[in-house]
């Protein structure tokens, strides 16, 4: 067996594997508002991040997304408490002073009775959204979006470069703007006014434009675009196939995730879309002779990690079909059940914490 297949061989995992794993967890979370399952997903993703994150700057993404999730929950609960009415439940927690609203706002009441059902429902819904956010955060922490872009197939190379450049420019624009703002302060301007906004924008945009021209010159002199021989027709075919395929995939995913959509929208259009996209990438990939430096291998650990995420999603989809009441509680006040298959499925996603290789980029620890 080659060393890349061994989990003990220290290397960084293919970013695609982490993203499949995280998206599998996110898809699983999207199927349920059962707090037991959601908290389990949160715990699993947090554990895996803790076990396999590096000290790279993006590795803090999980904490950032977790904070964002907490804010989402808080907003949902507070708004629901303010806007709740007796129709949502009978267990009154407390009563807020009611604000009279004009006629045109009929049907909405501000304040009044706050029921346990309403608050708990809002909490579960918020928890679902927060869990999905945390799954995305986990993917970002384990494999930066840029590394994922590096793995884009050759046909999408131009798009990937444009995205990477944009990702570099966005933080640069922010730091430029703050530098120019500081400089304007030196000229006696304070606060944000419309006029000063224009004054800040001018030098910042000029700087950005100059930098892009500079970058284009650098890329040109380093051979960018030298190996592509494109006929207009082949480029158009690629674009049409890829975008048609992506559209199909989007429709398919929507069909699968939305319970109310017709069955025809789901799996078939996903498959057709995937086929079209693959075809487009293959056609487009032929036209470039670009090579790739140290491509991340896709070996056994990648299959296990991606597979564990997919298994979790599959377990939740199965439970959703076989026992819908276990995932969508009929009343928020009931004690949430613990569906066996779904729980085992989520716990499967814990596998990467032990079977994925240790990232090698970790800085040597200082011995105190």
């Amino acid at each position, binding site marked *: 067996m080659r060393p890349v297949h061994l989990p003990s061989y220290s290397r960084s995992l293919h970013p695609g594997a982490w993203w499949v794993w995280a998206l599998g967890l996110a898809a699983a979370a999207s199927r349920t508002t059962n707090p037991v399952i959601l908290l389990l997903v949160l715990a699993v993703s947090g554990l895996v991040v803790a076990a396999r994150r590096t000290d790279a700057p993006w590795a803090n993404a999980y904490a950032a997304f977790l904070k964002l999730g907490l804010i989402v929950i808080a907003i949902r609960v507070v708004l629901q408490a303010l806007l709740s009415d007796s129709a949502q439940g009978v267990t009154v927690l407390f009563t807020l002073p009611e604000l009279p609203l004009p006629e045109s706002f009929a049907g909405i009441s501000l304040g009044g009775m706050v029921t346990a059902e309403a608050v708990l429902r809002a909490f579960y819904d918020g928890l679902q959204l927060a869990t999905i956010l945390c799954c995305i955060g986990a993917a970002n922490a384990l494999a930066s979006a840029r590394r994922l872009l590096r793995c884009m197939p050759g046909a999408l190379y131009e798009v990937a470069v444009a995205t990477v450049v944009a990702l570099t420019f966005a933080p640069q624009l922010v730091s430029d703007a703050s530098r120019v703002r500081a400089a304007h302060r030196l000229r006696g301007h304070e606060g944000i006014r419309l006029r000063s906004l224009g004054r800040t924008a001018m*030098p910042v945009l000029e700087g950005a434009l100059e930098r892009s021209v500079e970058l284009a010159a650098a890329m040109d*002199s*380093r051979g960018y675009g030298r190996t592509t021989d494109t006929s207009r027709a082949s480029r158009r075919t690629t674009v049409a196939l890829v975008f048609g395929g992506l559209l199909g995939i989007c429709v398919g995913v929507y069909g699968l995730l939305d319970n109310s959509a017709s069955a025809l929208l789901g799996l078939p259009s996903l498959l057709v879309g995937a086929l079209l996209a693959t075809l487009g990438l293959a056609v487009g990939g032929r036209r470039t002779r*670009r090579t790739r430096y*140290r491509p991340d291998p896709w070996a056994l650990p990648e299959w296990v990690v991606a597979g564990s995420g997919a298994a979790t999603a599959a377990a939740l989809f199965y439970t959703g079909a076989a026992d819908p009441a276990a995932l969508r509680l009929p009343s928020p006040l009931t004690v949430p059940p613990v569906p066996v298959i779904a729980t085992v499925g989520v716990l499967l996603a814990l596998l990467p914490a032990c079977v994925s290789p240790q990232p090698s980029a970790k800085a040597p620890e200082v011995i105190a």
Partner: protein
Amino acid sequence: MIDFDRVGVTYSGALAPVLDDVTLHIAEGELCLVIGRTGSGKSTLLRAINGLVPHFTGGRLTGRVVVDGRDTRTHRPRDLADVVGVVGQDPPAGFVTDVVEDELAYGMESLGLPHDVMRKRVEETLDVLGLSAVRQRPLAALSGGEQQRVAIGSVLTTHPRVLVLDEPTSALDPQAAEEVLATLTRLVHDLGLTVVLAEHRLERVVQYADRIVLVPGDGEPVVAGTTEEVMATSPLAPPVVELGRLAGWSPLPLSVRDARRRASVLRERLVPHRPTQKAAAATSGTPLAQLRAVVVSYRGIAALRGVDLTLRAGEVVALMGRNGAGKSTLLSALVGLVTPASGRITVGGQVPADTGVRTLMRSVGLVPQEPGDLLYADSVAAECRLADEDAGVPSGNCRALFERLAPAVPDDRHPRDLSEGQRLTLALAIVLTARPSLILLDEPTRGLDYGAKRRLISALRSLAAEGLGVFLATHDVELVAEVSNRVVVLGDGEIVADGATADVVVASPAFAPQVAKVLAPQRWLTVADVATALETAS
């Protein structure tokens, strides 16, 4: 290796050609230095080597440029990527990826080189440039010198025969500049690479050059020759060459070592003389700004650790130290852009962080590192009018100041089209419009040519003579020798030296100007000082 045959370049819309009838031959394995003032066409000459001029910039090229047998008329820059490697002025602006290793591999990926070749070349390049310790590091987290070396490495991996660099050390502190130049000379000597570089800081590079191309600009013919030939007559020369001319040494010394070996006679002649002391005003002036035990920290990391400093009227104080030593932080704290965590700063009797900017700008003004940040109008005249409004002074004030510092700049010129030196001067005039008693400058000579630097020096001297305090953060040791009467050295957020210029710089290996190194242990700092002494003697 590189042949220019009657080359002329005219940009579209321009009245006169930038380059006209240039014929040059640069042989294989040479280190060729291109000098000239800003706007003279140096960058155009460099960019013509790999065809960026005219393929990328537009304009019209007459004559022929042939590099390693390839004519740039029929080869686009990308077709020359395996022959010519180009490193721009601002390395981060040319980075395409975000990790050192990927950046090194980028050019090879574009050329479609096989995987095993790429692996080998990346490893070799990491070793040649001493980058193996940072191979996995994000590019944004590197120091200036490391970024410059990555930029060089990223074009070396395609194994070009020619390396073209536009001002590779202008943004670097002296130590990092040494690092980069040492790398370049090693490439020339060990790998036989042909290197063409443009540089304003001649004192750093002249000694390494085999050949110099002087681009005078304004339609004057380009002069090319060996370093000694061109330096004998060049209007642009480093202090060591000027000293050689003054003392009548032949052949001219190009390095401190050459000069020192010939300087024994000159040193003896200078023994009875003492350099004129500029420090006379230093301790007598009224204090303009005072710092007491100032601590500033960013995200828990201390940038300044207990700084005590007094700045007085009529003195020019230079603030030195490597990048990241806290120089910019100190300047920002003086104008209230950052608030100290502890300690006390007073400027003109006020605490900067608690004072409104409109009041503060009457006691202290800062010219930032990018003077363009201060400018936003579309013409010089409009810029000056706005400055008068901002400062609440009668109109015409700022324009008059600018006229005094940089004569005869047309009113309708766009600030972006000004030369580097004019833009700096305009920013200085704007700051001066509010009549502050203390002027701060951050890295003012970055990108300035010798002429612009000389004008800046005389402007700063006359401001100090009028009783203003001048405080400048800089890496430029020659500027410090010329203009300052006191030097403060920051190291790791603490003041490690503070005293008269000669006391601080003469013995320092990093901060001593060339003249001081040649004439040590005597305390001469500039060629002008030596010239005055010799005149009084004869």
